[in-house]
């Protein structure tokens, strides 16, 4: 007996490949991004404080999604891509 596979589908075209640049964690600008759930910001504050023991932190900035339940807006993603060499994402839940 032959059946149709209920999980079958065609692979969607993936996003354009991006070549990652090397990051200098001692000096480069870093975005700390919260998913806007409780404790994500606190976790990032701890990360920033720990980084501060080894490097300047004036170019390490906090960002957050508008809503914990929705994707990060395109504007935020573009802003982070344009202004930072690295991003750390905290998922509070």
């Amino acid at each position, binding site marked *: *007996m*032959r*059946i149709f*596979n209920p*999980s*079958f*589908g065609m692979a*969607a075209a993936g996003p354009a490949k991006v070549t990652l640049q090397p990051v200098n964690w001692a000096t480069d600008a870093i975005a700390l991004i919260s998913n806007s759930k409780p404790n994500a910001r606190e976790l990032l504050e701890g990360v920033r404080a720990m980084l501060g023991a080894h490097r300047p932190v004036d170019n390490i900035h906090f960002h957050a999604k508008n*809503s914990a*339940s929705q994707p990060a807006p395109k504007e935020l993603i573009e802003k982070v891509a344009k202004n930072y060499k690295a991003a750390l994402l905290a998922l509070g839940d």
Partner: protein
Amino acid sequence: MKDIADQEVIDIGDMDVEAFNEYANEQGWSDGMPLFVPTEAKVAKFVETVRGDNRPYPPVPPRQIVPTLQALAANAVMAGCKPEYFPVVTAALRGVLDPEYNLHGTLATTHSCAPMVMVSGPIRHELNINCGTNCFGQGRQSNATIGRALGLMLLNVAGAKPGEMDRSTQGNPAKYTFCFGENEEENPWTPYHVQRGFALTDSVVTVMSGEGPHNLNDHGSTTGDGLLTTFAGGMSNPGSNTIYGKGPMFVIIGPEHAATLKRDGFTIDSIREELWKRSRVHLSRVSKENLVTYETTGHKPDGDWLTIGRDPKDIHITVAGGPGKHSAFIPSFGGTTVACTRIAR
């Protein structure tokens, strides 16, 4: 041997129904209840019912694959649908694929949300969809299997496997199935799909990522004003997602409550306005820790109150059910929309 996920058609040999169900469980295709076998012949009958709808499907998140009609039909067959239900199921799928519905978020969340499927228009009676007594409950093949088919598509096509992509803390019985019809015949105002701009003669599916129905019992009130006090009390919930996730919700009014509200001069708009005002949550009912979180994420209180949505239009109103003094409140996931799709026929 080719991986099963890459094969559109699978030869399962000489399996009986029990053996197929064991096999389907092993593949992760089941919601836990018995499945019908999606044979090529059965799937072909379902696909024939949607030949008039040639619009391609977008990639389905989170798995991001573009489904074939045959794969979608296989899920409807497994759910126990009749072929004529399939256009309703595919319309519901198109609804949850509206980007504003936020399918990825609603499937991956720890919240208990499941797709609420409401059917409006003439097709309700053609398919024997229950709009009256026990409309949210058991008893009709159409209600039971249309909702179930959408759930199986989200499991098998979208990839929302419990404990993997579906991270719901407790889940919700509505994840098995949640489909009902509007009781347009006992709606003293305007049917929901007409409120949304469709013709009365259109058949429409409305979807919202919601919780199960919360009962609003009021046997005592004899005025519309009294009923709205009860409704608003039931909606005023500091544990609701929409108190900080701001989003839509449904109030499904039972026909007897609807008749009382209509008699006392209430309209859809005035009901929304009154419920909006009366369902606010006083800050004394919100923990200090939560209030800090809400404020830091942009959900500041209005004076001493938190609203349960963005504005009165977040409260969607219609009529369903049979005799009795009950209505229902269905809160949503929050970051979602109420999507309506005309059923292609």
